[in-house]
């Protein structure tokens, strides 16, 4: 029984990272119907920025986290402006290939300038392990869970209560109608990329803290898993991304704990294929009839 709780805590810590990345995927998909393959690499850049701020500039965790979120947000806006905006009216496949190109570009630029070796992420806060009965929880896990929850509440506030959030929701429902109502669609899309990238960067810094190691290709697999999380919850839906992220994190931890850790990636891909076949709109999604 206690080991179930233990795995649940580990799963929730990992799942909060997936949820943070999945939020960016789901918002971008909701607004321009693009699977932003480069999103996982923004998360990697966020981790590297955190590494730089903590290791070289000796900032403490929170300023480093905020700075890397801001810079990653700018990077997200710039990639949208340079790579995706010129393709606004192209085919979906063209935009998707561009996204793969951006992803490869970011990875290979990082490899070219900083090498492909694994780096040790500095310990920004000293690790303490609290024991509750037989369940162990480290202060890093607590920090991850609290920061994630805080960011989600902020996001919920922005999306539901601010004017910009209203514009985001409007654009994702109907871009053309939103434009007719005087909403600046391009600005709204840029803003969505900024928020998504900032959340991914936060995830990157937190995972650096959790696993203590970062490398230029670290974004590929978590990026894909976060995308799967977004699909699982219902792509385009913010609560869906959170639910999917936690679900994937917990399932993955349970599969590892049962002794199938080598199959955990295959398991997550299998979930994707099953959900796409059974309910492509995701757990929280509603079935929308396709109009001809």
């Amino acid at each position: 029984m206690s080991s179930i709780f233990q795995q649940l805590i580990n799963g929730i810590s990992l799942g909060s990272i997936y949820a943070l990345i999945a939020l960016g995927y789901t918002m971008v998909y909701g607004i321009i119907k693009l699977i932003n393959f480069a999103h996982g690499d923004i998360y990697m850049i966020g981790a590297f920025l955190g590494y730089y701020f903590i290791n070289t500039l000796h900032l403490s965790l929170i300023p480093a986290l905020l700075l890397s979120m801001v810079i990653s947000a700018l990077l997200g806006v710039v990639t949208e402006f340079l790579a995706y905006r010129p393709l606004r009216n192209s085919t979906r496949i063209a935009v998707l290939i561009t996204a793969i190109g951006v992803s490869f570009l970011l990875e290979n630029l990082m490899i070219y300038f900083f090498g492909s070796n694994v780096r040790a992420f500095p310990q920004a806060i000293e690790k303490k392990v609290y024991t509750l009965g037989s369940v162990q929880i480290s202060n890093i896990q607590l920090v991850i869970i609290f920061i994630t929850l805080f960011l989600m509440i902020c996001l919920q506030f922005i999306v539901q209560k601010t004017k910009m959030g209203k514009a985001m929701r409007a654009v994702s429902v109907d871009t053309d109608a939103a434009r007719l109502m005087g909403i600046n669609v391009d600005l709204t899309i840029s803003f969505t990329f900024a928020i998504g990238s900032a959340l991914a960067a936060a995830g990157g810094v937190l995972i650096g803290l959790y696993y203590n190691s970062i490398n230029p290709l670290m974004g590929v697999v978590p990026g894909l898993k976060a995308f799967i999380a977004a699909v699982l919850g219902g792509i385009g839906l913010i609560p869906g991304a959170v639910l999917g992220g936690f679900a994937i994190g917990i399932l993955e931890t349970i599969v590892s704990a049962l002794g199938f850790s080598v199959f955990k990636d295959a398991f997550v891909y299998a979930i994707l294929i099953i959900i796409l076949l059974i309910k492509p709109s995701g757990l929280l999604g509603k079935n929308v009839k396709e109009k001809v």
Partner: protein
Amino acid sequence: MKIFNRNNFCWLGLIAFSFILLSVLINIGVIDTFYEMTLVSIGINIILGVGLNLILGVSGQFSLGHAGFMAIGAYSMGISYLKYPTMAGFALGIVIGLILSGIVALLVGIPTLRLKGDYLAIATLGVAEIIRVLIINMKITNGAAGLSGVPLFDAIPMWQLVFIFVVITTVIILNYVKSSDGRATLSIREDEIAAESMGINTTKYKVLAFVIGAMTASIAGALYASYYGTIVPTNFNFMKSVDILIIVVFGGIGSFTGTFLAAVVLGILNTVLQDIGDLRMVVYSLALIIIMIFKPSGLLGTKEFTFSALFHKKNRLSKKKGDPADGSIKH
């Protein structure tokens, strides 16, 4: 249409000419062992590119799992040829790879090809990753360490074998594209809903293109295994799928001439730019983005080089010269 017509003779001549040219170049030493390696890898990439182009360019479905099917072919060859290092073992390796990849593509294709565009890309990517994880965890494939010491096919030089397979796969795929089934597949790319309302079984043709593409990928994988002798699961990861995608996109999505050109040019570039390894990928990914922004259909679009078009042009030109008033003749 007769099979022995002028166009087919011209193609046969071109194939024979390139074969003789390559043999001469190798015999007089212009292409040494090192460049022969480039030649073989170009050939393998052509097979992969042509197969992916059938899926992406002709049926319009976005598959990111090509490397997975290549892995099936490579491992079938590796296991069979290691066990029976004879001609029969080699043939067995190719046949097993073809059957296995065909079955897997069929099983995966029927449900997933109902999905649209980008979901399909992710699903096929997932399938390729599942194949890779299974290979890592199976005993017969020797796990993450992979297989080594797969014998080299030595009845004829490897480049000739690859050449033959390039010709076979390309002829089969081009014939498919030109057949009525192929035209049905093309109509799906143009407009799936319209194709469906014309009574075309879209799922059937999508699956057909997907299966043919997967089987050619397994041939490429089998040749790869025999030529390099060592195969490890990481050879067939997501990066490999993207490498193939780059070839198809550079050449033009839907243009087989383009795939050939892109495979040759990129193959030569890879050899020349070998020293700047990491920067090369930076350049490729930048080029991928720039091509998509300025020419989303790839460098050659859907243009093809054909002899019939060449003759057609010549005829028209000579007619124009003979009688300028008849320039607007309708064909």
